[in-house]
């Protein structure tokens, strides 16, 4: 039961290991706030669609199940869009089209197809929770690196003074621009590969 939640964090982390959902993880990881908002939105959609699909899967004809899944996912995304637009307009503004684009995030359709349609309600909810939080964690890691190096802030609070006196070290603004996102994810993936190779070498 616990393993359903934990696997999304490390062994099957959707971004770093399965390489799913790359577009939003690079695009919204400019700041930690955006990353947390996106992670929570995706988690809500994952839990909701996994729960719905595991409950009502037997009513979907198997030949058109993918379109059915997409409609279910799109409905939950619309809920997130409307709630976020009403209560968190600033966050909604900065995430922009990446909120509606949760629909085509491969993680969510992937979990519906691979897990929710052949499992019971509770494991499906836990799976959605784990995968969603794993995605959020990946976003948080990328965003922390980019925000600290690129703007000298964390969660919008200036921390540059803490590690360097004012004016001594200017933030590397390339990190919050497009190239920085590619560099950060490249080195995180390389680290994961290196760790896996080392573990394999030890076991042999």
């Amino acid at each position: 039961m616990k393993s359903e939640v934990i696997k999304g964090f490390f062994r099957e982390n959707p971004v770093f290991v399965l390489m799913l959902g790359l577009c939003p993880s690079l695009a919204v990881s400019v700041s930690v706030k955006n990353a947390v908002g996106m992670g929570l939105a995706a988690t809500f959609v994952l839990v909701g669609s996994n729960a719905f699909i595991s409950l009502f899967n037997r009513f979907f004809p198997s030949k058109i199940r993918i379109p059915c899944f997409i409609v279910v996912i799109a409905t939950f995304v619309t809920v997130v869009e409307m709630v976020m637009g009403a209560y968190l307009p600033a966050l909604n503004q900065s995430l922009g089209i990446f909120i509606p684009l949760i629909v085509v995030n491969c993680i969510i359709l992937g979990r519906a197809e691979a897990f929710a349609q052949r499992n019971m309600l509770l494991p499906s909810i836990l799976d959605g929770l784990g995968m969603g939080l794993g995605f959020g964690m990946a976003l948080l890691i990328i965003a922390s690196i980019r925000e600290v190096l690129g703007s000298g802030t964390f969660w919008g609070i200036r921390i540059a003074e803490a590690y360097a006196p004012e004016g001594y070290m200017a933030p590397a603004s390339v990190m919050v621009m497009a190239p920085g996102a590619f560099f950060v994810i490249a080195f995180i993936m390389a680290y994961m590969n290196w760790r896996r190779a080392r573990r394999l070498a030890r076991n042999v």
Partner: protein
Amino acid sequence: MRSYILLFISIALVNNFILAKFLGLCPFIGVSKRRKQAVGMGLAVIFVMTMASAVSWVVFEFLLAPTEHNLFYMLMGAGRPASDFDFTFLTTIVFILVIATLVQMVEMFLMKVIPPLYESLGIYLPLITTNCAVLGVALLNVKDFGIMNSLSESFAKSVLQGFGGGVGFLIVIFLMSGIREKLEKYDIPPALRGAPLAFICAGLMALAFMGFAGMGQ
């Protein structure tokens, strides 16, 4: 005319879909290992993005947007303001269904009518449904050019954004496949092989493409 050319340059190069907007990364990393495949994917994306822009524009303007020419308003709007017929909250659901259907129909049409083209593009078409560049361009069109005074200008700019975005995608995926074919000959640290190095190259390309900023709009 000049504004359209500037718009095209800005969409294809300055605000490139892959390198500046992060749309369509999965096929960019997945299908950029061979030049031939990359070109096939790029052409399929141009085709689908242009079609999807046109179709989603029609659906949005005439069925979803609260405008004078909304079909529901024209049929049942007697004595009611057009703003009663605001279905924009359905945009996400309707667009993804329209795009999925469109891709399916294009695939069937090509299979029947132009088999050689189907042979070369066919395998990429199903992948494109979940390419976020396609849904992304439809949503961006609504955001950028959705409500405009002139319907023809709004349509032309939407389709241009779809086409230009596709051309930008083709340029970048083609350059990337050339780089990756060359990289295979070199001795690379094992941890960096595959996706990590592809991302570093993409980052360097994004840096180079930032040089286009200042051109276009």
